[in-house]
């Protein structure tokens, strides 16, 4: 076969490749990057509906004086800082227990702990709202065993509302992250653990000296995903606490939604706030990757 013919063949295949990936790549371009740029442009405008005027950086200065938005940032970061580490540590512990070769009923335990992932976010938010309601089963239990004298209104008190959201998030997502760690652990040779055991390493030492270092890439990935997800928290804030009491548990996405579609729509201002989330996601992912690299 001559050289020119080979060239045309590979050029043809090169073109075929572009045809194959074109629809998918085009859709991502139009559905993610184009709106992102439009959101940025929109964030420098103000007005209602189609009647938008340029306003410089007014939207950006406004949001830091907006008490509700500042509250929503604080709430979101509270969820992030408290919930994500607890969840990841818990998921790691569960995964390393379930990875034990001699454990019985392993599949059953895994299925049960993973089961919350089968529920939709709205569904579990509504379940937790009912469990923690004034006349819900948690109050009934606490009153019956004598911890409380009368039902405590978890969802209408500032801190308890936030903590209920964290409990709900832990319930829904711990098993999800555990599955990542389990699949990561399967790639670690069991003989490594056996060798550690022969050398007299305790379970705690094995966990810190073998499991965590070898799972580092997976831990980094789950940390980035959880951070990303928490910064965009919406369904729980809407359906569990409705952002209440008095916006004490509202998340950034929930407030942006309200600003765009619930109150008099102010797309320019909402776009500016949403752009802040984009920057936060990017910065935090970058920082986490940096920290992840350093420990090498």
């Amino acid at each position, binding site marked *: 076969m001559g050289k020119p013919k080979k060239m045309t063949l590979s050029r043809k*295949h*090169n073109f075929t*490749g*572009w045809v*194959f*990936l074109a*629809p*998918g*790549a085009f*859709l*991502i371009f139009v*559905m*993610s*990057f*184009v*709106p992102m740029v*439009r959101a940025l442009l*929109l964030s420098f405008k103000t007005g209602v509906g189609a009647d938008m005027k340029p306003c410089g950086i007014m939207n950006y200065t406004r949001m830091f004086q907006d008490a509700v938005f500042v509250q929503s940032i604080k709430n979101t970061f509270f969820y992030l800082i408290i919930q994500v580490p607890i969840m990841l540590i818990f998921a790691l512990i*569960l995964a390393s*227990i379930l990875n*034990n070769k001699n454990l019985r009923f392993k599949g*059953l335990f895994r*299925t*049960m*702990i993973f*089961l*919350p992932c*089968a*529920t*939709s*976010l*709205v*569904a579990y938010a*509504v*379940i*937790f709202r*009912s469990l923690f309601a004034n*006349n819900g089963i948690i109050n*009934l239990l606490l009153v019956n065993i004598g911890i409380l004298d009368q039902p405590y209104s978890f969802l209408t008190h500032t801190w308890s509302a936030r903590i209920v959201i964290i409990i709900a998030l832990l*319930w829904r997502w711990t*098993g999800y992250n555990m*599955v990542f760690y*389990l*699949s990561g652990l399967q790639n670690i040779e069991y003989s490594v653990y056996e060798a550690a055991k022969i050398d007299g390493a305790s379970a705690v030492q094995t966990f810190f000296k073998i499991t965590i270092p070898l799972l580092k890439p997976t831990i980094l990935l789950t940390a980035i995903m959880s951070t990303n997800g928490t910064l965009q928290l*919406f*369904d729980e804030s*809407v*359906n569990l606490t409705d952002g209440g009491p008095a916006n004490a548990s509202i998340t950034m*996405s929930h407030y*942006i*939604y309200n600003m*765009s579609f619930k109150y008099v729509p102010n*797309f320019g201002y909402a776009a500016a706030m*949403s*752009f802040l*989330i*984009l920057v936060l*996601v*990017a910065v935090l*992912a970058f920082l986490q990757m940096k920290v992840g690299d350093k420990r090498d």
Partner: protein
Amino acid sequence: MTKGKKFGMYLFLCIVSFISVFPLYWMVSAATNKSAEVVAGRLIPGGYFFENLKNLLANQNVGRALGNSFKYAIILTIISLIVSSLAGYGFEIYHDKAKDTVMSIILLAMMVPFVATMIPLFQMFSTAGWLNTTIGFILPTVSTPFLIMMFRQSARSFPHDIMEAARIDGLSEIRIFFQMFIPTMRSTYAAAMTITFMNAWNSYLWPKVIMTDSTSQTMPMVVANLTQGYVTDYGMLMLAVLICTLPTAIVFFCLQNAFAEGITGAVK
């Protein structure tokens, strides 16, 4: 391991499993009981299921919402699988420098939060007349970096000799994809299918934005509607939650391993 330690480990697992399962058990039991009994703390399934169902159907158009949810989720899953696997395959099998660059740009889209694109998308879609339509529901998530990456990873294991042999036999490139790649990668498709269907079924923010008409509402939206009001009928509410959860729960139980592979799929 000592006996005490072993006992502690099983006890711990049992407690965690109990906490994981209890809210779902409570949902099922509440769906079959009268609201007053649920509030009184009854935890055994009762005989009030059909009464709850009657109340629920009188209150919300569950049939329509279920139909909508199935329609949106199934169409989205089918198109998404075709588009993403074609793209993943194209990126891997015919890869060169330019395509790798495009791929890394696409991966950046993973970092773009949905709220940051939601408002322009809403504007674009309302101008295009896509509010309350299936195309409006599916377009933003029909092609995702995650799925493309997942299919790209799996295409890596697609043997090149088979492709060469097929080419010599005169099979066109697109037929190699449909007749050889898809059947070989059945497990990747199963994983991608479960994850896409579940995400589509569970999505809430985007439908809430774009489905402005009550006739196009999805099942999660109907559940959310039921919580608006002063007195909650727990039996009816939990029945709605149960109906909303059943399809994903069935997928979960039938395809648990595919689902686990789906969420971790692109990582390997």
